């Protein structure tokens, strides 16, 4: 099992938004999905997951509602809003150009003049 990597700041928001773009989910599901998709390379600590979810809600990118789980428990389910979808699009393209730029540097063969 590879050593988990800490997330870059702001990246977690992007991952959460992406996860929720498939449909409403509760916090545990979001965490599991991220871990599974990254082959458990990225470790989403619950210590930062829940504050991040609440902050996204505060900004209006996700909404939440309470549902009864299969075990008749109150569970909080998060859903992406239209604003959130737009934010996801914007952040994804930003992330892509960021990765692109970093990759260019790392692939460079010669020292710039």
């Amino acid at each position, binding site marked *: 099992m590879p050593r988990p990597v800490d997330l870059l700041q702001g990246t977690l928001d992007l991952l959460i938004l992406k996860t929720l773009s498939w449909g409403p989910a509760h916090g*545990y599901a979001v965490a599991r999905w991220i871990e599974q998709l990254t082959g458990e390379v990225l470790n989403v600590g619950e210590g930062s997951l829940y504050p991040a979810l609440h902050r996204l809600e505060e900004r209006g990118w996700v909404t939440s509602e309470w549902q009864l789980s299969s075990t008749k428990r*109150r*569970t909080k389910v998060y859903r992406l809003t239209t604003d959130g979808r737009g934010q996801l699009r914007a952040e994804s393209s930003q992330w892509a150009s960021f990765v692109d730029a970093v990759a260019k540097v790392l692939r460079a063969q010669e020292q710039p003049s």
Partner: protein
Amino acid sequence: MTRWLRYFEFFRRDPRRDIDDEIRAHLELRQADLVAQGFTPEVARARAQREFGDAAAVRETTVRVDERMMRREHRAEWWDTITRDVRVALRSLRANPGFAVSAIVCAAAGIGITAAIVSASYSVLMRSLPYRDSDRLVAIYAENTQHDWHGVNVSWGDFASWRDNNRAFQDGAAGVAIWTWTTNTLTSAATAGDDAERIYGAYVSWNLFRVLGVSPIIGRNFLPEEDAPGRNHEIIISHRLWTRRFGSDSALVGKTLQLDGRPWTVIGVMPPGFNFPDRGDAWEPFAADPNESHGNRQYAGAIGRLAPGVSVEQARADLHRIDADLEARFRDENLNWRAEVMPLRDDLVGNLRDPLKVLLAAVGLVLLLACINVANLMLARGASRAREIAIRSALGASRERLVRQLMTESLVVALAGGALGVGVAALVIRLVRAAFPGGLPFYITLGVDRAALAMVAAITIVTAILFGIIPAIRGSRADLNASLRDGARGGSGVDKARLRNALVVGEIALSAVLLTAALLLMRTYRNLHETPLGFTEQGIATAQLTLPRNAGYPTATDVQRFYARLFERLRNAPNVASVGAAQGIPFTGWDVQGDVHVEGEAPAPPGQELSTHFQYVSADYFKTMGVSLVSGRWLDASDADTLNLHVLITQQLVAKAFHGAEPLGKRVRIGRDPWATVVGVIQDYHHYRLPEPPPPAIFYSTAAYTPRQMTIAIRAKSGDPHDLVPLLRSAVREIDPQVALFQVQTMDEVVMRMLWRQRLMGNVLGTFAALALAMACVGLYGVVSYAVSQRTREIGVRVALGATRGTVLRLVLGHGTRLVMAGIAAGLVAAYFAMRILQTLLYGVHATDPMTFGIVALGLTAVALLAAAIPSRRATRVDPIIAMRAE
């Protein structure tokens, strides 16, 4: 289920509980997963918890975020509600502009006028004077307990005794000071070539500024030794004179200026805004002769600073103790004389106190009226909307929502009224300021007081809200069925109608009171204005001048020669009918009196002396003033013999001193002055001020002796007497450019100035009364209109059954008439008792004058019935078919 939970969430949202649930759910799900992977439940739970990490930190962060979010949401929701309410309120007010405008105007008028008058009163009655600890300063005059004379000048001897023997005043130099008025001709200044000008000032004992607690900003105060006769060469000038005449020359101190032809060294300049006694530009040392008699009461007054903790009463008692001692030692001079002590503020503003009290009372009524009117309008509006309220309530609007909506409407009206009221207040203050002749005295600073404005606005706004929500509360509680069935009649129409009727009766009563007060004051002014003065004030220009002893006029002959030349020039000028001069013309404050004694009659017993006005006048003075001769002859140049003085006397003196016997040829004298023979009797005329009766008076001739200070009076043959002023100025300048004219005014202006206070009171109360009448009419109009709209169907039925227009009009108007009559009756009864406070301000009319009350009753009836008649006419035009179908 989800919907239900959402409601649940809405009402019971609790971030702490929510995050606990969320974390618990997380842990349970993780535990379940781990159990599925083969862990025992205990191990799974422990591992889930370990993986989750610091739950407390997570909880803290999320709770903070959630609470922030909730606060923001609440705020947005609240703001949203407000703006929605205000939008709805504005829309509904726009739909009914008559209501909105009347309510706003009433509120604005009430708030503005009341705030202005309350601020002005506060400023005049309460604000401290621009001296240090001014509430410890008192003015001291002399009073005579036997004659009941008050505010008499003081003597140096009495002052010195008070100063040296008191226990109630501040120790040392800051205790008691004496002062008296003076005017000087300032001739040469640091800047050469300036005209001679007359400046006002005062002789002050060296410590006066120490008593007042104000020091010069440039230079220094007087020293004790500079107050000695023959040592007084120093002068302190005002900041005003320093800037105006000397261009704020900082090197002025130490320089010399010429006053009345005598050099004075400027030693100090007082701070800007400093005034004493009233208006003054120069202060010179008092330099009294220390041996002056106690009976020589000729100095304006004394000022004292109370020792800390001493009351005015204690100070008065303290000085009376000294006076008792003086009375014992100087029987002739001090019998029945003692000090009159009053706070300095009272001395300055005392004559404004009564008028202000009346104004405050009047303005209280205006505010009450404005509030009633606003209340009435609110109730009327509520009544006309009873149906709307009932329907909205039926459609599910909560009572809270309805009340809030109506309250918002009231608030919008009240706040608009308040905002407008600030403007009205500023305007009223401007008018009051303009009403003071010759500008505001220094001790009054007029401005709109924020506290007063806030208080008054609060009263009005609370009224608006209170009466705005009464219909809402009633409407939302009302039986919906009844309300809809009754149509526009509303839920508890009878109750509300009764309340509104009562309010209208109150309004009419209040306007009756204000109208009565206004009418009484206006009649007072008219009575004073139309009082035959005994002289003809039209067409006369007047000016004072003083000939300085030290600059060309050392002897009485020099003075006489100057006036002779001046009269000669003026008499021969075109458009001059006649020229005269007197020591004091009427209504300018000059009033020297003495006890008169007729030769051959036993001297009056002490306390029975007849006090008479006396002064020197030139030969043509009375001809110029238009006072006619009753018997004997005028004074003329032949009356120059100082050993055999000739005098004119007034009819009053004939009546009081001669008891109607023939006075011509008899001899009279003032006190122990030389005897003088009566050569003529003149008609009585008012001299000191209205409404005081014409005084008994004796007039000596300037042919025998001419005082240095005289007031010239010139009568124009025709046209504006102002046109004579340039002539007078050039005549004086040609004879002696060093002589300054001052107090240049026409006799009309003098008379107007004397009556400004009465005129102001009449005008202000008149304005209030007009406003009150307008408000009452608006209220009455509203109530009658409402009644008409209520009875439209009834009227329709009556018309259908054959009622004529006259019958209908009587029916509707009868209601209005009953309200008007009740209001007037109540108002007149209230006025009967309230007008007593006016008594001291009235002249020639009694506070309960039946004619005034009659005029008020008739006028108010006429105007009020007109206001009721307009909506009543609408009732006569009711078409029975439409009226009955409308329901």
